[in-house]
């Protein structure tokens, strides 16, 4: 049996393990003593590997390039030479006819690794000539990146995952650590065992709420009001660190003025919380010698996401909980490499290492290294801009790599219209997906397990992962495919291996310069910033000496007025839908849905959780199929009654095809980060009288959807044999 060192391809914890390989097939994993996981793994780590083996449980792996001559035709199998030529010709035509800004690309926050993301943004900027490149952080932690960049100067977790176990107070806000990052949940439990106080703010009684010393079940949509009230208490009760605020922050007077209105009594109505609990929370937080704030999508997926992030960082600044060990602000990243895709500049406003595209000196540096006269200076489009840009006739070509917007983006009707409205769409993936069904050209990439590279864990930790098995079928590495298209478009790119790419990006990015492949050998790791070759592990926590990465070195205290969510409940749609995550499935489920153990735990049509009292009123019984509808769509799913769900709200996970909650979510965005308000959509639930019909209907729908996706791939092969393209 062979063993190959790898990093888990699921959440952002960055767990290390060996892949066990027999006869070119991955047969198991063996936990390793990595810096973040210390020998532990969750169910996805232990049992989430078999998708690589092409189990075909949900969808088939892509094995060869496929093309359809027109949108009403089926896919045909073609050769790589043809595929590269088609991609280059079509993109060149679009660029010629409409200009470079008519093309959009995506990086991928999943298994492809940092090097591929570097190559994708280089291709977009240098070969196409646009900054229209983005990744799924947009619909996830983009508000954390944008908010923290303004207040502290760096968008990442300030401290490290391993420090969570040693903090003396945890303020967990809108973050279901048990379901999102089970191995980080272990750190929370460790901290608690060592005597840390745990405060949880979440409308749902999540696992951490059960373990909390103080649980604040705030109303859905009241985050900003509560954060302002926290600041109000810290200031009014004199709990804040006056010396720290005077020396290391700015904006206090304006901040104090805005939060003065937000007394615990004032926000009691908005948040549904007892004013004394709000005070108690801040007394605990301020009294702790070290305190850490952790947050997740419950903070970011709102129209006020960026503002709440800024507000949370204000609490850490007020109490001096930054710039030393075991404190800080922790936006814990959900996807294994979403930190990395942001780090590597698959964002419309920055080059790798967060170097702004609007800075002429930076542009000149990259242009020189890449051998082009100039690079685009205009900030590009974001993935959530795509639907309206297509409608306005501004976007014509789309290169989607390793993402499935037709499952994961809000208001799927509008996503489908935007894909149909493009003149040419490339989908590069490892599986046939719902998005790939809209593509003109489908390109098969190697999977995690079949290539090597570097991932960035949620806490800025770079770690290397190896290839364990050879590529399936005709699959090529993502970075090879992009390089070949680029070369065919007249901008030659060629790399021998990922190390060559890594070394190029290190040289262009001072904060990554010290993170060499050699240091990341085996269980080695480097946390950026690491500017020095002699620095073994980089930066464990940011802002040492309370020096914030802003022009004057001070942290910014920022508050703003609360406003209610955009979608409003009424008599027709009286319940709030909040989309969430479940522990056994990941992202669009193309990977976990093809893992035998994980899909056995949970399968279509998913479920909608509802409080038993609401269910009783609506005549809905546990495990029955129900309709859920919003102003934008209607789907069928299974009801799950639980007292952990608050009254007036329902929760759905976003990976199901039939119970697809994104048919219901809307296009209200944060004004800065353009992150959708997934956490608040007005919906209604209706019981279904004929449950036997409903069960059959779900089975038929599922079989049809599966059949369409696998049929597209199988049929392409048959067509190729009949009439070579």
């Amino acid at each position, binding site marked *: 049996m062979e063993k190959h060192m790898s990093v888990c391809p699921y959440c952002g914890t960055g767990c290390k393990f060996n892949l066990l390989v027999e006869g070119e097939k991955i*047969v198991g994993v063996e936990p390793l003593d990595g810096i973040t996981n210390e020998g*532990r*793994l*969750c*169910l996805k*780590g*232990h*049992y989430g590997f*078999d998708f690589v083996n092409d*189990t075909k449980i949900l969808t088939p792996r892509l094995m060869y390039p496929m093309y359809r001559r027109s949108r009403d035709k089926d896919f045909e199998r073609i050769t790589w030479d043809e595929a590269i030529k088609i991609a280059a010709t079509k993109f060149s035509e679009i660029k010629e006819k409409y200009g470079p800004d008519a093309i959009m690309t995506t990086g991928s926050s999943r298994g492809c690794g940092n090097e591929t993301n570097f190559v994708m943004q280089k291709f977009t900027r240098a070969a196409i000539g646009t900054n229209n490149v983005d990744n799924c952080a947009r619909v996830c932690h983009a508000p954390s990146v944008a908010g923290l960049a303004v207040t502290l100067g760096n968008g990442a977790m300030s401290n490290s995952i391993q420090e969570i176990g040693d903090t003396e107070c945890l303020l967990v806000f809108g973050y279901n650590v*048990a*379901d999102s990052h*089970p*191995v980080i*949940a*272990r750190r929370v*439990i460790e901290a*608690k065992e060592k005597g840390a106080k745990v405060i949880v703010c979440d409308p749902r*009684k999540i*696992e951490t709420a*059960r*373990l909390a010393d103080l649980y604040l079940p705030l109303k859905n949509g009241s985050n900003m009001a509560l954060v302002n009230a926290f600041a109000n208490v810290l200031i009014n009760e004199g709990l804040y660190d006056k010396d720290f605020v005077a020396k290391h922050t700015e904006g206090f007077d304006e901040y104090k003025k805005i939060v003065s209105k937000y007394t615990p009594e004032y926000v009691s109505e908005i948040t549904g919380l007892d004013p004394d609990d709000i005070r108690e929370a801040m007394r605990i937080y301020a009294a702790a010698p070290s305190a850490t704030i952790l947050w997740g999508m419950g903070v970011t997926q709102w129209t006020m996401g960026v503002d709440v992030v800024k507000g949370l960082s204000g609490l850490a600044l007020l109490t001096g909980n930054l710039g030393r060990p075991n404190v800080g602000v922790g936006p814990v990243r959900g996807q294994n490499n979403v930190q990395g895709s942001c780090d590597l500049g698959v964002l419309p406003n920055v080059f790798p290492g967060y170097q702004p595209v609007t800075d002429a000196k930076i542009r000149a540096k990259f242009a020189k290294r890449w051998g082009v006269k100039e690079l685009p200076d205009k900030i590009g489009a974001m993935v959530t801009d795509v639907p309206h840009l297509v409608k306005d006739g501004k976007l014509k070509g789309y290169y989607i790599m390793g993402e499935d917007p037709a499952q994961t983006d809000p208001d799927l009707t509008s996503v489908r219209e935007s894909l149909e409205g493009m003149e040419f769409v490339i989908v590069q993936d490892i599986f046939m997906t719902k998005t790939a069904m809209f593509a003109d050209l489908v390109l098969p990439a190697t999977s995690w397990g079949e290539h090597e590279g570097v991932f960035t864990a949620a806490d800025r930790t770079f770690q290397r992962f190896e290839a364990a098995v050879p590529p399936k079928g005709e699959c090529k590495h993502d970075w090879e495919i992009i390089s070949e298209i680029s070369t065919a478009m007249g901008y030659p790119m060629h790399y021998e291996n990922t190390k060559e790419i890594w070394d190029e990006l290190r040289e262009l990015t001072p904060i990554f310069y010290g993170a060499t492949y050699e240091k990341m050998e085996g269980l080695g790791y480097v946390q950026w910033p690491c500017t020095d070759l002699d620095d073994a592990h980089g930066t464990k926590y940011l802002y040492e000496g309370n020096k914030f990465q802003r022009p004057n070195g001070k942290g910014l205290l920022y508050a703003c007025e609360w406003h209610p969510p955009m979608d409003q409940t009424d008599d027709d749609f009286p319940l709030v839908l909040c989309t969430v995550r479940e*522990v*056994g499935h990941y992202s669009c489920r193309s990977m976990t849905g093809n893992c*035998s*153990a994980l899909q*056995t*735990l949970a399968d279509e049509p998913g479920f909608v959780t509802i409080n038993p009292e609401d269910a009783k009123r609506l005549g809905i019984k546990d495990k029955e199929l129900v309709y859920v509808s919003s102003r934008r769509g209607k789907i069928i799913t299974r009801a799950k009654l*639980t*007292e*952990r769900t608050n009254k007036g709200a329902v929760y759905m996970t976003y990976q199901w095809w039939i119970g697809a909650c994104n048919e219901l979510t809307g296009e209200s965005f944060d004004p800065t980060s353009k992150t959708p308000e997934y956490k608040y959509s007005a919906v209604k639930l209706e019981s279904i009288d004929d449950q036997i019909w409903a069960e059959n209907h779900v089975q038929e729908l599922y079989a049809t959807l599966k059949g369409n996706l696998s049929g597209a791939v199988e049929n392409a092969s048959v067509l190729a044999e009949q009439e070579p393209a």
Partner: protein
Amino acid sequence: MNRFVAADPSKCIGCRTCEIACSMAHNGDGTPAPLSDENFKPRIRVIKTATVTTAVMCHHCEDAPCLNSCPEGAIVYRNNSVQIDQERCVGCKNCMMACPFGVMDVITVPAVKEFAGVKMTTGVKAQAHKCDLCTDREAGPACVASCPTNALHVVDEESVEKSLADLRARTAVSSIAV
């Protein structure tokens, strides 16, 4: 004293890794077969109520009601645990009814008989189904090894002795304080 796996509700996050680990450990000969609805039969179950999340499984009772209720003598004490001799089980479900914890199940599997080296399926075979402490697994119970939060541990005579001794010491110290 019989050994058993104990769960700590203050550490359990309800992730069900133990359920998969259990199913995998008892599934197939040597290399585990892929899981499906048909062979996903965990002997440990994660329970979530409004206030509690924890795993429940066999206590390996000292005076086991399942064993006492079995008319076929299929349930025995062996190797400091309660084990089942499946060839004796007739599927009468007495043990299932007798267990006060709801952790004994009776399942049926395809019965296989071998004649002259040829395996044939002949109806179904009943099996009393519960935690066997992964008795054939060298590294011990799979659930304990896989738990991401260390919420599961094996309790045996030695560990009980130690924790009781610690408790007695603490009691003695606190009696001075009073």
